[in-house]
């Protein structure tokens, strides 16, 4: 789950990381009022869950409250990479001397968190990572020991941070580590961490990704999810514990298991079709979940055919068949459907579906070929 900049910075501040004074506004009037409270010179920052906000014109400096209102009006009317801006963060403007990058993420290959920093922080950090990776200093953190003081010093020295800032930098690194571990983040990033002209360290921007699997122990973070920022079908799918991602094709897919779901998409493409979605109903799915999944697939108007590929293990094929029948009654789909059931209770499942108007397939190859033909208008 992605957090907004303002949410991430609030969490950082709880762990002692200094952030600029500021608040979130949903209207231009509020933005003006916040600017007045902050004394005039502010930065208006769009709060959308994508990168490249600055380059899209979604981050602007206002010299006074009037200008803050004007710029907030513009930014609140924008779309950035297809996402409408619904909120802006109004932050006190800082006088920047240097921009530093500081982040913690999971290094899956090392099976440890990694703390990274660069003296070349700011908007082009991804280019720095690509072109001059030696400018990024990394240190792996033992997850059983946590961040050690010497590691923060090693990073500070590695980015040539002036020694008078090492103490504060150490506190910020520890604060970021606390924010990362106590929030079960998969990424906690300050970019830029600036040295101001009056020689203070300040986290101007923040980004956090939270491990969805850990939200059970963070109800406060789970509440921060911004459902306005995701496709309604994906929100609906999450409610039922279904993994669903909408794609651009026209063959809807319902599969149990993520690997098999991807393989099913691949084979559709191999035979000349285009998958409309990734959908994993998970293990042990019952009739209700299957019906919800079919509704979600058919809510995409591009879908011209649906392919069910169920390999029963924990999941019982007869349960899936019951779900399909329930959904068919409810949704009355107008598109052709191809079903393949293998494994646990497959025979019972096939019998349940024998009366329904569906194409059947024995193998994955046959199922994909039939679905591709059906989507093109011919019934193979």
């Amino acid at each position, binding site marked *: 789950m992605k957090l907004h900049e303002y949410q991430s910075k609030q969490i950082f501040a709880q762990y002692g990381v200094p952030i600029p004074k500021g608040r979130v506004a949903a209207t231009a009037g509020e933005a003006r009022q916040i600017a007045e409270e902050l004394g005039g010179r502010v930065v208006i920052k769009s709060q959308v869950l994508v990168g490249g906000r600055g380059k899209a014109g979604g981050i602007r400096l206002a010299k006074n409250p009037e200008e803050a209102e004007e710029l907030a009006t513009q930014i609140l009317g924008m779309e950035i990479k297809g996402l409408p801006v619904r909120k802006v963060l109004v932050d006190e403007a800082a006088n920047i001397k240097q921009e530093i990058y500081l982040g913690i993420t*999971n290094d*899956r*290959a090392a*099976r*440890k*968190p990694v703390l990274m920093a660069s003296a070349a922080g700011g908007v082009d950090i991804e280019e720095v*990572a690509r072109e001059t990776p030696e400018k990024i200093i990394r240190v792996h953190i*033992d*997850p*059983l020991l946590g961040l050690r003081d010497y590691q923060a010093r090693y990073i500070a020295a590695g980015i040539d941070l002036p020694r008078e800032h090492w103490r504060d930098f150490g506190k910020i690194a520890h604060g970021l580590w606390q924010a990362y*571990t106590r929030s*079960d983040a*998969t990424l906690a990033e300050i970019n830029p961490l600036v040295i101001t002209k009056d020689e203070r360290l300040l986290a101007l921007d923040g980004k956090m990704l939270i*491990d969805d*699997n*850990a939200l*059970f*122990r963070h109800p406060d973070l789970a509440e921060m999810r911004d459902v306005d920022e995701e496709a309604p079908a994906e929100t609906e799918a999450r409610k039922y514990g279904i*993994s669903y*991602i909408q*794609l651009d094709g026209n063959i809807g897919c319902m*599969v*149990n*298991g*993520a*690997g*098999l*779901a*991807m*393989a099913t*998409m*691949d*084979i*559709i*493409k*191999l035979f000349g079709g285009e*998958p409309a979605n*990734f959908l*994993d109903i998970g*293990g*042990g799915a019952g009739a209700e979940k299957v019906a919800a999944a079919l509704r979600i697939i058919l809510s995409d108007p591009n879908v011209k055919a649906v392919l069910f590929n169920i*390999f*029963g*293990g*924990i999941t019982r094929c007869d349960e899936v068949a019951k779900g399909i029948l329930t959904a068919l009654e409810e949704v009355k789909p107008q598109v052709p459907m191809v079903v393949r059931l*293998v*494994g*646990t209770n497959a025979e019972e499942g096939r019998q349940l579906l024998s009366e329904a108007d569906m194409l059947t397939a024995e*193998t*994955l*190859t046959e199922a*994909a070929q039939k679905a591709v033909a059906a989507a093109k208008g011919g019934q193979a």
Partner: protein
Amino acid sequence: MSILVDKNTRLLVQGITGKEGLFHTTQMVAYGTNVVAGVTPGKGGEWVLDGKIPVFDSVKIAVEATGANASVIFVPARFAPDAMYEAADAGIPLIVCITEGIPIQDMMRVRNYLDQKGVRLVGPNCPGLLTPGEAKVGIIPGNIAIPGNVGVVSRSGTLTYEVLYALKQEGMGATTCVGIGGDPVNGTSFIDVLEMFEADPHTEKVVLIGEIGGTDEEKAAAFIASRMTKPVVAFIAGQTAPPGKRMGHAGAIIEGGEGTAAEKIKALEEAGVRVAKHPEEIPSLLK
């Protein structure tokens, strides 16, 4: 012959009285697996499966009473890390964790702890192990595979079933099938299993089933090129997945240009691996 599990495995089931645990214990016993004990804290002294299997309060007590030498974990995600620490501290050398949805920071701590103890972990978020005709540890349906000379290692669950089933349709069987799981931080890797198959005299060919995300397949390719003498056939799921999208498995995320199917397939083919276009093509590539 086989790797990791066989007739002599003395299996303990953690979470044996839960719905999943009990169902799959029944299946494992029906398959012939030697399940010697179960653990559910607070239910020590009970018996399951018509009095055939004793339940204990802790892994330590169960090991002392029954000599269990492997454990399979069916407990929910929020309790699974503790179950793994408990099994490791009780001296169990092989832990198979079926549980999905364990937070990644928990898994980093578990993995680092288990490494220090020298304990082998398979999973989590995996279907477990199947040595056809001898034993199954986990949830792979027993009837979809037959004994044979192919070693199977996979990051996926149901996709593994698809491959075992396709092999069986062609009369081909497996020595052992190892599901290593789809999580970004797990225990046993492709390379660990490839090394075991290379050393196992009964495994003549190997099937590797990977998916997008991470660089484990690329590392496996390097291992195959330098160390494997046995032929390897592979399939990589997610060739059509759009970059940056999470396809259900936490591990299947393309991060910063690494981990695409195209990169993995290229690395494997350069290592002399034949890569199938779809799962049902695998048996013909093994012939």
